[in-house]
């Protein structure tokens, strides 16, 4: 249970003990009780010029919703958040608040910032327990919009456009909508029923979600162009491999494959579910971001001893600090300043040969440039290797859209409102920015949706 909170004292969200939680896939965070939430809300200074809002990519009216919590009007608080953000139960759980709203909160300088993320999650969970309120939609405009991809970007664009009265169809290639929220982020951080419930609101708003529809194949590009506007939110789902020897061995996975097998296909419950995943005693995860932490923590839950190999220092790990700590608590071992050079084995993986990395001069971002230390090679035994070294946009659809411009990394080039080089075609989220965050995808999608709405209304006036 969480620490008791007195007035003015910071509340920490309760966490299940590592030894217990590492045995299952249930949520790690317990969430706030009503009393804790109210006490935390009362810490808010209700600033005249709230800096927290500036830190929020979708500009939720943070002090206002917190004030509602302090008044115990939890559903009112939910309504305020949902005006700006249709997925608060998701964002409350996975947003890096420490560098966004909470990072900007004025109290951060003195004691501790208000736990805005925990409060957001609290009101969202409260609302869901009582049945989510479907946001109202405007009079039908008769305009049709195609949204490709149902990750945070696609869902947000669909919601905004539906709210404005447009007829929205979402095309999703997988069998479940949600994008990374469903197949990538594990349920112990983001329970899947939470995601489902937030997505169901869209259906309630009249949005049609067509799963198993791969745009560019099930829906040819010409059919997409027949819509009044197209929003592309196909994410950055293409996994990178290191291109080192041994990568083709059985037991070498991309983080995407490993996480998809477990999160989306439930391989943790094989053979009750038909999709298998290798049962490994020792796992090496390569990478240092959120994806690597998730893969490592999932592998721990499947019972393996897990070593995470990262080429820089602990302070350089790009993952959220809280997730690094949780991974450590759960027994993930960290092999830092090391880099794999070869995966060993014949047919199946037996180990990973690594080399020590020396930290040299700092690069532009202030991180050290690692370089391999000659003769420092060492081996880690492993029967499974998971590579979590990054992803890029999937070129499948983009290459088929004639005239659309994309960058060197395959990301669709857009202006600040999500306009691509093609009239009527917009894009946002990871497909435009490269792998980023849920809330940046949502923020970008919202801007694009507004630009689409404006375009469609002008269109209507012209006719």
């Amino acid at each position: 249970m969480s620490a008791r909170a007195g007035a003015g004292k910071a509340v920490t969200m309760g966490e299940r003990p590592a030894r217990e939680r590492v045995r299952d896939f249930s949520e790690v965070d317990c969430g706030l009780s009503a009393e804790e939430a109210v006490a935390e809300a009362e810490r808010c200074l209700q600033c005249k010029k709230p800096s927290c809002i500036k830190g929020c990519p979708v500009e939720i009216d943070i002090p206002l919703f917190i004030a509602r919590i302090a008044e115990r009007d939890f559903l009112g608080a939910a309504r305020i958040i949902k005006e700006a953000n249709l997925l608060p139960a998701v964002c409350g759980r996975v947003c890096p608040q420490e560098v966004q709203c909470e990072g900007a909160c004025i109290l951060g300088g003195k004691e501790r910032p208000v736990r805005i993320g925990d409060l957001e999650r609290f009101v969202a969970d409260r609302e869901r327990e009582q049945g989510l309120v479907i946001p109202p939609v405007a009079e039908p405009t008769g305009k049709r919009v195609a949204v490709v991809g149902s990750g945070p970007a696609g869902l947000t664009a669909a919601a905004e456009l539906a709210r404005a009265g447009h007829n929205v169809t979402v095309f999703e290639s997988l069998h479940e909508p949600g994008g990374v929220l469903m197949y990538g982020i594990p349920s112990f951080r983001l329970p899947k029923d939470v995601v489902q419930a937030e997505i169901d609101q869209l259906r309630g708003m009249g949005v049609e979600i067509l799963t198993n529809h791969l745009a560019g194949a099930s829906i040819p590009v010409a059919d997409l162009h027949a819509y009044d506007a197209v929003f592309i939110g196909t994410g950055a789902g293409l996994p990178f491999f290191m291109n080192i020897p041994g990568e083709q061995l059985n037991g070498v996975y991309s983080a995407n494959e490993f996480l998809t097998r477990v999160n989306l296909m439930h391989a943790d419950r094989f053979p009750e579910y038909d999709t298998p995943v290798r049962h490994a005693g020792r796992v090496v995860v390569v990478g240092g971001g959120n994806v690597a932490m998730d893969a490592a923590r999932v592998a721990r839950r499947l019972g393996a001893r897990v070593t995470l190999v990262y080429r820089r220092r602990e302070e350089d790990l790009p993952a959220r600090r809280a997730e690094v700590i949780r991974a450590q608590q759960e027994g993930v071992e960290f092999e830092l300043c090391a880099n794999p050079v070869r995966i060993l084995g014949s047919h199946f993986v037996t180990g990973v040969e690594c080399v020590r990395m020396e930290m040299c001069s700092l690069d532009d971002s202030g991180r050290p440039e690692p370089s391999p230390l000659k003769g420092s090679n060492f081996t880690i035994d492993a029967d499974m290797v998971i590579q979590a070294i990054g992803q890029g946009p999937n070129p499948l659809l983009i290459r088929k859209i004639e005239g659309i411009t994309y960058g060197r990394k395959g990301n669709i080039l857009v202006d600040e409102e999500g306009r691509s080089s093609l009239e009527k075609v917009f894009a946002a989220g990871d497909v435009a920015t490269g792998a980023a965050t849920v809330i940046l995808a949502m923020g970008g999608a919202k801007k694009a949706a507004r630009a689409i709405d404006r375009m469609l209304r002008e269109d209507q006036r012209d006719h």
Partner: protein
Amino acid sequence: MYRVIEAGQLADRIFQIWVEAPHVARHALAGQFLVIRIDEHGERIPLTVSAVSGDLVRIIFMAVGKTTHQLSTLKAGDFIRDVAGPLGRPSEIGMFGTCVVVGGGAGIASCPIIARAARAAGNHVIGIIGARNAGFLILEDEMREACDDLFVATDDGSRGFHGFAADVLKEVIEGRKVDCVWIIGPAIMMKVTSEVTRPKGIRTFVSLNPIMVDGTGMCGSCRVQVGGETKFACVDGPEFNAHEVDFDLLMQRQRTYFDEEKASLERYHERACRCGEGGHHG
């Protein structure tokens, strides 16, 4: 949910299903595949689009493991939870001259649609279909219709030529100029058969069948080595230049889940026995 319109058995352990999936049927071309998931607990498995008619797609499959066994119990009126596609690149059909389409076992399922497309493009098309014995042979009539000439081979001689499809192919390319060959079947059959066309440098395509998950390029499970490069079979293929494919690696990777697959099938059969019949429940 996608409705099964027709289901039946074609040969020993080989079945066909016509399923209603307009989004696939309307856009599928020769050489493409789809991914199905039978129910909530199901695995996503890839199967070739073997024919299309209006809004219907035909799949032909050999019952080898849990999912294909379960699929073989479906009847007209049943539903398949998910059907995604069409996936992969279509066959590269051009006006080559003379083409040979070689099918082995369940791989014959992919042949008529390619043969028809090649013929429609103006090629002279020769078909060769082979199986262990007559009991495993499928689509002979359809291939006869789709091709200008058809040869049949069985390992035991129970029908047609006594021997392998590779032997027939060798005779064909010795007898006349052949410009393009497709070979589709089990990995080992594709490996052996594509050696036949290598000395003459005949353009040869094989359709690779690695283990897949999404089928859209986001997991890398299907990676294969072609010409020394890593390719994702689901988006870069499934058809590749046969003479550049590392077949041994393909076969190695196909065995990744050998133990799990065995356990899953045994569990399925046990449960099917207890239920007294087909056993729809996983």
